[in-house]
């Protein structure tokens, strides 16, 4: 197998296409980043006085608590919107010529997933502009490590979207999955409320939810506690990486399974 022509070039091709399309449709960008910011601001402000929790920085406001969850929501939305386009690509015919090109399934999956991942990270960075307002400060190195972490998380989310969208015949079906599966996954990730206060059965669900580890790793990163010695952080990163590997392998395998 020729890795350059079967994986690298097609990945670049599909990745670049994703970016160009996105930047030609500005409204998509506003939709994806706008609603999580509103969620964050309204829910964060509204719950502000009734929420009491301490953080390594002292007392936490809900705006502060909800921040990592909002980052995750922005990336989840971007992942959903960019993988939903797979269904449109199939309907509009673009995929048919991709599928008869001499490239590997890994190239197709990687190109599409990297595309969505890149867009998700760009939007997350835009949202990070709000971080100093609520007291999060980072050095350049810390900022870069945070970006790397967000990239890996976004890869997992987009890969999950890919895996679902590849099998779907209609965008309506994808919306149903989004409402019944993806959004609940986010709700139960520690984004909205901490796991510690939840009833036992809910804690059980949360502890097997890979998104829980994404939120906790991000949170540790924001509070400068993401150190090698921190067992919780290392464990979270391992969970995230395993999740990425599983969804990517699944995506790669499903690409060559379904015909046009």
């Amino acid at each position, binding site marked *: 197998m020729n890795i350059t022509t079967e994986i690298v070039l097609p990945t670049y091709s599909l990745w670049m296409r994703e970016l160009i*399309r996105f930047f030609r449709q500005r409204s998509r960008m506003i939709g994806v980043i706008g609603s999580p910011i509103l969620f964050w601001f309204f829910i964060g402000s509204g719950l502000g006085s009734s929420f009491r929790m301490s953080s390594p920085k002292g007392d936490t406001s809900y705006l502060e608590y909800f921040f990592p969850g909002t980052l995750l929501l922005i990336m989840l939305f971007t992942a959903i919107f960019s993988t939903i386009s797979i269904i449109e690509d199939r309907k509009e015919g673009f995929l048919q*010529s991709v599928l*008869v090109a*001499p490239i590997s399934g890994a190239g197709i999956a990687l190109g599409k997933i990297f595309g969505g991942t890149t867009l998700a990270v760009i939007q997350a960075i835009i949202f990070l502009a709000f971080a100093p307002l609520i007291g999060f400060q980072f050095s350049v190195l810390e900022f870069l490590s945070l970006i790397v972490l967000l990239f890996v998380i976004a890869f997992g989310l987009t890969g999950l979207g890919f895996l679902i969208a590849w099998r779907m015949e209609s965008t309506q079906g994808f919306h149903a999955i989004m409402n019944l599966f993806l959004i609940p996954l986010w709700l139960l990730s520690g984004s909205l409320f901490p796991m510690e206060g939840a009833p036992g059965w809910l804690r059980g669900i949360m502890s097997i939810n890979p998104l829980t580890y994404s939120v906790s790793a991000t949170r540790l990163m924001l509070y400068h506690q993401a150190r090698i010695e921190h067992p919780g952080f290392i464990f979270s990163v391992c969970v995230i990486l395993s999740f990425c590997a599983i969804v990517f392998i699944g995506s790669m395998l499903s690409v060559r399974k379904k015909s046009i």
Partner: protein
Amino acid sequence: MNESIVIVSDLTHDYAERRALDNVSLAIAKNEIFGFLGPNGGGKTTMFKILSTAITPTSGRAEVCGYDVVKRSSEVRRHIGVVFQSPSLDVKLTVRENLRFHGLLHGLHGTTASQRIDDVLIHLKLVDRAHDTVEMLSGGLQRRVEIGKGLLHRPDVLILDEPSTGLDPGARRDLWDYLLQLRKETGVTVVVTSHILDEAEHCDRLVILDKGKLVAIGTPDKLKREVGGEVISIVAKDPAEARILLKRKFKLASTIVENTIRVEKNNGHQFVPKIVEAFPGKIEAISVGKPTLEDVFIHHTGHRMRNEESSGVDT
């Protein structure tokens, strides 16, 4: 005859409950323009999908450029250019971007890719539209970009599914001029499916597919010669009675297609006056002509080609 570049043997394909291709065998020579003619549902699009490696046949074999389309699909993909019936362009991207991204999928990058794209744009007369997004182009121009996409990586075999779909007669003529010129200049083999009879006339050889079966194969001329000298079409007040009389008086076998009596006959023109005199007042119209491909189709299948078009199911 040149060596064969596409070889199909005992090819059969079943969809859930329907046999779309039934034991078809044929060979396509290098540098040939080869057509699959038939009504929708006849099996030509299924043939297209198998040859372009989009689907795996139920049984039988197909080889393109010496490679099995199932076992060596990635080799086949390197050697074919595929033009789908439905659009496969990204309408939000420009013509040039579409070609560039397609080139990357075929291992073309950097200056080689740019040169190839320039070549294709010049050949297809698309240079001044290169930076327009595809959604701004007319149907005819979009189809040209599709063909450009199929040709960019210089395939040995160009496979097109119903390439004139949605084109007006002028654009259709341009398309065929281009395909003929291309074959002359590059020696590419062109495999095309069509349900349009005029279009099939451009092919060096063609196969007629009906209900998944190969019913005839040959050059358009040979196929027409097989029908017999001429075709007499008769519109009679009472077709059934007229057919009996034809049989009794002239020993002529006839068929009836859409209320028109058809008789295939050598020197048919000499018969026309005899028929008219034999049935005074009973004939409303009579005509005689050299067989067309439509006659060839009727000769082999007993029905018109467009009868089945209304089904709308295209496989």
